[in-house]
């Protein structure tokens, strides 16, 4: 069990580290009209964000606490969907660059030392 928790925490931290860069890449792809690339990455982002929330909840149940604010992430996903539905891609790019990216930059990592 401890091994699984350690692996989950490592994956969580790795993903969280990559997310801001990924958000910027999505915004840049949209701003340069590489929409197919951006839409593919947005799909991966929404799956990744879902995994992050689940992992956070499961770790919490195992007494590893690290507030993530899943409501805020769901709010982001809803706004992205709205932007995509009305095809206002500038709005979606703004979301990723100026709201979602800073949000994940400010999210905290789990400390591996907690497991030791």
């Amino acid at each position, binding site marked *: 069990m401890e091994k699984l928790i350690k692996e989950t925490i490592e994956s969580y931290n790795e993903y969280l580290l990559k997310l801001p860069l990924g958000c910027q890449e999505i915004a*840049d792809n949209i701003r*340069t*009209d590489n929409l197919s690339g951006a839409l593919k990455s947005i799909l991966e982002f929404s799956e990744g964000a879902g995994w992050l929330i689940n992992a956070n909840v499961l770790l919490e149940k195992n007494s590893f606490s690290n507030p993530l604010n899943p409501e805020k992430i769901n709010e982001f996903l809803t706004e992205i969907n709205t932007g995509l*539905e*009305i095809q206002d*891609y500038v709005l979606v790019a703004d979301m990723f660059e100026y709201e979602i990216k800073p949000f994940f930059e400010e999210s905290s990592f789990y400390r591996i030392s907690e497991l030791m």
Partner: protein
Amino acid sequence: MIFDVQLAKNGEYTLSVNNINIYSMYNPRKDAEKFIIQAYNRDAEGYVLIGLGLGYHLEQLIKMNKKKKIFVLAFDKQEIEVFNKFSSRKHSIVADNVELIIEGNLRGQFLNFQMLIPFAVMKAIGYDHHLYPYLEDIKIRQMSNNTFGSIMKENFKGNIDNNDTSINSLYKQYIGKSAFLISAGPSLDSSMNIIEEIQEKVFVLCVGSALKVLLENNIYPDAVIITDPSPLVMKQISDADYDGMLFYLATANHEMTLTHVGERFIIFQEGYSLSEEFSKTHSIPLLETGGSVATTAFSLLEYMGFEKIFLFGQDLGFIGTNTHAMNSTSNVKIQETTIFRKVIANSGEYINTRADLDSFRRWFEKKASKTSMKLYNTALSGAKIEGIPYINENEILHILCK
């Protein structure tokens, strides 16, 4: 059009048109700069910028090009008024190399000029604007080139080394004959019986994504055509046990061409510089591709001299969410939340379509208005194509078996 100017978070003005954001609400100038820097082609003879807006795109374009001509299209006088009132770069439109055009007819005037079309501007003017189809056709080609540019070049080099036969020898070799052009649209599923019944009487050319579906239904096409540069097309031909003719575009996936065991013909396309150069030096014809494999196939059949072409599975739209025949290698389910534009089908119903499919429909209509071939469309639930009437099975039999 409804122009709405607001202050962005960084204090610059930003603009939305018809409720679609043209620039960022945070940093509009930087947003426009990114687009121009990425899209700019320094080899173009000049530039046509679609949309004046608040001048941010133009400002960056002038920074990058102070000599070559820049035409800027404003959609109406109100757009110019908005620009004059809010832009901090009013001097840009009086630069020596800049000329403002208002709602002109753009068609055919700017050969070798680069069209700079921000996607947001297209979305903002909307489908109903008379320039929308024209801009959309150009934009789709540009986006495809951006996505596949480097892979197309690699494929081209590899395919030239194949030393395959060009299509010269087939020019007008099928005068008076009929061809089935089989695509993999949803309506193909209901056409299998008639195709199987008559396949011996016609030349059957199918697109790659329809090949395996046909073989599974005891239909053995005379030829298959594949144009896609992506390695994904390997699955269209690999393990198909097919040794008929393969027609492929010079930029089609190279690995796929090597997989085919039958006779191969290479096609060089108009509008792709490497193909055009090769065609010139080797006296090989160029075909108009129209952007899709089926439109390329249409040009090929016309070149070969066919008198009648029957389109199968050329739906150019879809009911619900299925884009292709059920067992086609290209079938995908579109997310149901997507909002589609509608077109009228041969059945009289309205069906969903996408920008690329609608662009191909316009291409077919343009070609139909110019060709002397007799054209028929068998897709009852497919999009109506002006100039290519719907035909049912009895009528097909009457024409081909009389």
